[in-house]
């Protein structure tokens, strides 16, 4: 159905089935709060009215910085109802230094043109100065969850006008990071609704489905798969608090079991956590028979993680064909590929050495085999090409950069023409990911760009290197940050090599701690710090320390102390 805004779709869902469950808000140890469609949309309309009264105008970007709260959902919908553009930002982790939080937020506000910050009183002191800063785009800070909206009906919000333009922007998503250099992707109502329709077809979404999710909504996987998709398709979603889930992973299994959920999206590390960090006694009475598809997404899919998950939960009803995967990114709204529901993700064994040379060939020696898991085939409206460095298309089985054409493709990073031009041309997006194809199935095997993915979250080595460079005793600019496989957790961890005159002295220990603390201040855990002597790091042709060249030396143990 072309020509709709989100609000139209949501009100239609409420009109058709006002009593149907829309969102089950889950809090550990409490009875879940159940939003039914009629109440949810009525409350959203009240929020729309309250926001308009506070000065929010159509087209304004409203950034939310809120913790898990039952009123979040109608608030988000109310922003859309007011014709404004919603942008969910991460609530600051307690590790993140307040000054870094403010620095990141003000950078984002400037670059993305944030107009309103909707947050909690606890952050007022940090956020308020943004409004007063000279040249700030931020017009006001609102505390919408404190307001009593009353129970009466609200007048129809701005978006309810007939003929509201579906090509207007409805949401803005940021790439991850804390430095304020995050890039923003803006999506229109039509783009979101079209994408959700295409993706729903790829996973065979139906009225009997129920989604369970602990994913944060500032990330595309949470926002699109576990929020926009269920809202647009009127499929109930059970939402958990990401902070609670990471401390007690069993909560997701409890929610799936009690709510009979059929679908969930998880980054790879979650499979390891669920397989290894849940007690048997906490699983008493829990069943996973209802699950028809678990989608592994947002970081490289590992066969071992799927195997562990299945071994642990097959006795509780988890079936092998439920272990699927998806390749997705904010630049294509969400999904590019998806494995077929009701079939486990295809797995191929390839030769590691051949793979390093760019060829996915069968292993000659089992010791040198690498198991690659398919991320599935392109969803409707999407095409994936594998290209060589010079842009030449490569045949099946050759490794190259993945280039995507999609009808859900973004039209550029907001206010960043150069960054956009670097990755987007002729309707094709250069992902920076490396992979190969076998009969339309896409296997993602690495990255051309240096991004490090820790637990589904993208970290930019430059951000870590800048923070470490500023530590006293480190030679400025003589730092590299690397992502190193963390097999136990099924993700990557961050290692840092820093040159210092203190190499080999008693003061090196204190320096290591100071470097770890600098990582913590930007909410990055540095798993290993290696202090190198001056001029140890190999420089690239551009004169900066090369991550690639130094990585090999580090992994070969050249800096290890006996």
């Amino acid at each position, binding site marked *: 159905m072309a020509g709709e805004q989100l609000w139209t779709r949501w009100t239609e869902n409420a009109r058709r089935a006002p009593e149907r469950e829309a969102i089950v808000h889950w809090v*550990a*140890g409490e009875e879940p709060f159940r939003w039914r469609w009629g109440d949810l949309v009525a409350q959203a309309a009240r929020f729309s009215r309250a926001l308009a009264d506070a000065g929010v105008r159509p087209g304004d970007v409203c950034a939310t910085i809120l913790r898990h709260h039952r009123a979040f959902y109608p608030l988000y919908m109310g922003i859309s109802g007011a014709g404004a553009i919603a942008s969910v930002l991460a609530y600051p*982790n*307690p*590790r993140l230094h307040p000054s870094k939080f403010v620095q990141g937020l003000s950078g984002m506000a400037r670059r993305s043109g944030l107009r309103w910050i909707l947050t909690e009183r606890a952050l007022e002191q940090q956020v308020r100065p943004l409004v007063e800063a000279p040249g700030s785009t931020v017009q006001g800070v609102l505390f919408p969850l404190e307001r009593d909206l009353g129970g009466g009906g609200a007048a129809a919000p701005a978006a309810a006008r007939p003929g509201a333009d579906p090509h207007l922007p409805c949401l803005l998503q940021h790439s991850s990071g804390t430095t304020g250099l995050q890039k923003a992707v803006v999506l229109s109502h039509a783009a979101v609704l079209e994408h959700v329709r295409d993706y729903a077809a790829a996973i065979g979404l139906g009225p009997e489905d129920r989604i369970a999710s602990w994913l944060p909504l500032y990330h595309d996987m949470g926002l699109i798969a576990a929020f926009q998709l269920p809202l647009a398709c009127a499929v109930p979603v059970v939402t958990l608090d990401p*902070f*609670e889930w*990471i*401390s*007690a*992973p*069993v*909560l997701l299994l409890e929610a799936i079991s009690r709510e009979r959920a059929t679908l969930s999206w998880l980054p790879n*590390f979650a499979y390891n*956590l669920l397989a290894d*960090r849940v*007690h048997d*006694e*906490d699983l008493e009475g829990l069943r996973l028979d209802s699950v028809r598809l678990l989608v592994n997404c947002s970081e490289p899919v590992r066969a071992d993680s799927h195997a562990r998950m299945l071994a642990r939960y097959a006795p509780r009803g988890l079936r092998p064909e439920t272990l699927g995967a998806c390749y997705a990114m904010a630049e294509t709204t969400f999904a590019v590929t998806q494995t077929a529901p009701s079939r486990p993700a295809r797995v191929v064994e390839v030769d590691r050495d051949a793979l390093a040379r760019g060829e996915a060939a069968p292993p000659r020696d089992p010791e040198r085999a690498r198991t690659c898991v398919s991320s599935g085939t392109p969803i409707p409206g999407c095409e994936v090409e594998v290209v060589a460095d010079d842009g030449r298309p490569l045949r099946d089985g050759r490794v190259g950069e993945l280039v995507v054409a999609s009808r859900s493709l973004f039209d550029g990073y907001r206010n960043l023409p150069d960054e956009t031009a670097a990755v987007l041309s002729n309707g094709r997006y250069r992902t920076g990911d490396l992979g190969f194809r076998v009969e339309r199935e896409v296997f993602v095997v690495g990255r051309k760009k240096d991004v490090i993915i*820790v*637990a589904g979250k993208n970290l930019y080595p430059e951000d870590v290197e800048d923070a470490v460079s500023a530590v006293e005793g480190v030679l400025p600019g003589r730092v590299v940050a690397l992502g190193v496989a963390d097999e136990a*957790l099924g*993700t990557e961890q961050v290692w840092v090599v820093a040159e210092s005159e203190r190499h080999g002295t008693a003061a090196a*220990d204190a320096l290591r*701690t100071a470097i*770890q*603390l600098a*990582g*913590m201040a930007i909410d990055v*855990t*540095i*798993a290993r710090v290696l202090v190198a002597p001056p001029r140890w790091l190999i420089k690239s042709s551009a004169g900066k320390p090369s991550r690639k060249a130094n990585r090999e030396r580090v992994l070969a143990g050249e800096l290890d102390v006996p």
Partner: protein
Amino acid sequence: MVSEKLRSVIRAQLRLDASFPIEEETSAPRVPGWDSLAHVALLAAVEHAFGVRFRTLEVLKLRNVGDLQALVDRKLGG
């Protein structure tokens, strides 16, 4: 009072050196390496070292090392 045993489990698990101060009011965000991913593994190490089992809601209520020590004590005493 934080026991030496709990201190050494935490330090060993997070690979902190022996002089890293761990007191009742020490909380995860202030300790290198003690992030949300490491938290679950650390609790498992504490459970293993003391031969106790924590329940979900008990885990979610922990604010600092003092709370963790009190929880361990309660498990051992009860």
